[in-house]
């Protein structure tokens, strides 16, 4: 028993591992909680696109020596508003508008990185995350952003609930639909920046949709779904970092793989909504109908 405990605790005696743990926990709570709205509103593609779109912001901030978050947030918010404007003022469908901005911004980001000598290393960090390289200053900033995001989600809980359930209802209740949608986009840009540090641009979508989708299979109440999402995010962060430490696997993919494994487990076993339960029900129905 003590041996197992030592295995669990030992890695986090290294300061870089402890910082990585804190970072992964911050990301593991904030991103999946916002992710519940992303899953419920069918915004997964948008979330993935936004993660790529903020790349040039991250790179420019890096080159100027600013906190990465600042650049990412500025570009993310601008792009989100730009996409809204394109689909509102032209006949272009929204997913196409997202695609145009997504590809253009990502190309700009990669082009900017390619001018640097440390191109390959930097690109790898940005694409797949570098949670082991998080500094104490980064941590404080991440914690601050996560706190603001969570407080905002809590403060606008009712309004976001109505907006996700039925935008038309939100409009008849005279809620400020446009403002709420833009606020959701800003929050999304903020958690993406957090997650990129941990798992990178390429895998950020997993933080956003996998824990929330897992939670969706387990409950039919929004607050519980948020709670389960956060729990799943935290669990995956810890287990993923341990796997990364002992088996020498890159930390970002390790965290995402744990999330995916939990999803697979729940998908098969979830009571009532899992694959096994559905198979059971349909078998019972079949045998019941054969008696008639």
């Amino acid at each position, binding site marked *: 028993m003590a041996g197992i405990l030592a295995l669990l605790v030992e890695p986090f005696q290294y300061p870089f591992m402890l910082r990585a743990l804190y970072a992964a926990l911050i990301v593991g709570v904030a991103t999946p909680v916002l992710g519940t709205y992303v899953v*419920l*509103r*069918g*915004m997964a593609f*948008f979330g993935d696109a936004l993660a790529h779109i903020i790349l040039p912001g991250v790179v420019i901030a890096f080159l100027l020596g600013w906190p990465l978050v600042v650049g990412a947030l500025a570009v993310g918010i601008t792009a989100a508003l730009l996409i*809204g404007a394109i*689909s*509102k003022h032209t006949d272009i469908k*929204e997913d196409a508008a997202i695609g145009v901005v997504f590809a253009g911004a990502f190309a700009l980001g990669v082009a900017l990185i390619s001018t640097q000598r440390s191109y390959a290393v930097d690109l790898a960090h940005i694409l797949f995350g570098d949670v082991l390289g998080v500094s104490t200053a980064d941590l404080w900033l991440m914690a601050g952003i996560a706190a603001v995001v969570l407080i905002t989600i809590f*403060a*606008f809980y*009712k*309004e976001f*609930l*109505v907006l*996700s*359930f*039925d*935008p*038309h*209802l*939100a*409009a*008849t*209740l*005279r*809620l*400020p*639909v*446009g*403002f709420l*949608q833009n606020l959701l986009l800003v929050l999304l840009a903020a958690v993406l920046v957090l997650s990129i540090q941990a798992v990178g641009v390429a895998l950020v979508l997993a933080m956003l949709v996998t824990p929330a989708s897992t939670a*969706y299979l387990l*409950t*039919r*109440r*929004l607050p*519980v*779904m948020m709670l389960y999402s956060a729990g799943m995010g935290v669990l995956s962060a810890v287990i993923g970092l341990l796997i990364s430490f002992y088996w020498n696997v890159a930390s970002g993919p390790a965290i995402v793989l744990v999330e995916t494994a939990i999803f697979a487990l729940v998908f098969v076993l979830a009571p009532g909504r899992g694959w096994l339960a559905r198979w059971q029900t349909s078998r019972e129905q079949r045998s019941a109908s054969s008696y008639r």
Partner: protein
Amino acid sequence: MTLVSERSTRVQDFLRRPSEHAHDADPIQIEDLTVHFNDVLALDHVTFSLPGGLRTAVIGPNGAGKTTLFNIIAGTLAPGSGIVRIYGEKPRGHVCIAHVPQRSRVDWDFPASVADVVMMGRVRKIGLFRLPSRADWGYVHEAMQRVGVNDLQNRQIGDLSGGQQQRVFLAQALAQEAEIVLMDEPLTGLDLPSQEAIFNILEDLKSNGTTVMVATHDISMAAERFDHVLLLNHRLIASGPPAEALRPEMLLEGFGGHVHVLPGDVADILVTDDCCGGGE
């Protein structure tokens, strides 16, 4: 993600308390309303006025502009040209209008219980940064009681029958303290007892002075169960009590070849053909 192309309330309007309106004006007054979607005419110079507490059926074939009319009254769609007045004011200022959604518009898998959905009707009244008070829960419970879904309050909305789901949305309208309730094809696909339950609730609403508008293409139901009928096919063909508005020549004009006129009790009607898809 679906961005709402509908009209959005500005933040500064949202921060003000919803205003009380004058009750001496008619609840719904529409003058010369014309709406185009791109080049397609949806509503063509529609003019009518409804006094308070009336139960009105809006009938017409599919694609006749019924939903468009409701969206404009609800204030979620801008009127193209013409004047729309709700209790004498522009629709957007009002929080007293409930628009019960068509079944197909609702995400029945959404993680919300019956009580959650009913409480949504109060979100605007509760106000920003506040949790529902004891009084708000009082409204919610009373609303669920009135439509008879109290026993189902913790169930997920997708687990209910079609009739129960409709009643949940009526409870939401009650919790909203709506004075105008718009319902889009609420009885489609419901069995007779469920339809009866809905009519009992509409009766209850009427006794409170609530104005109810129901869109339907069921002519016999409109004739038997409503005080007033608007016969709509882009143009407003008739507005009046059922016996007046549902005269055969009006119906022929409204439904085209899809109505066959037979002698009946209420008026000389009717066998209808619901496949009106071509009449748009």
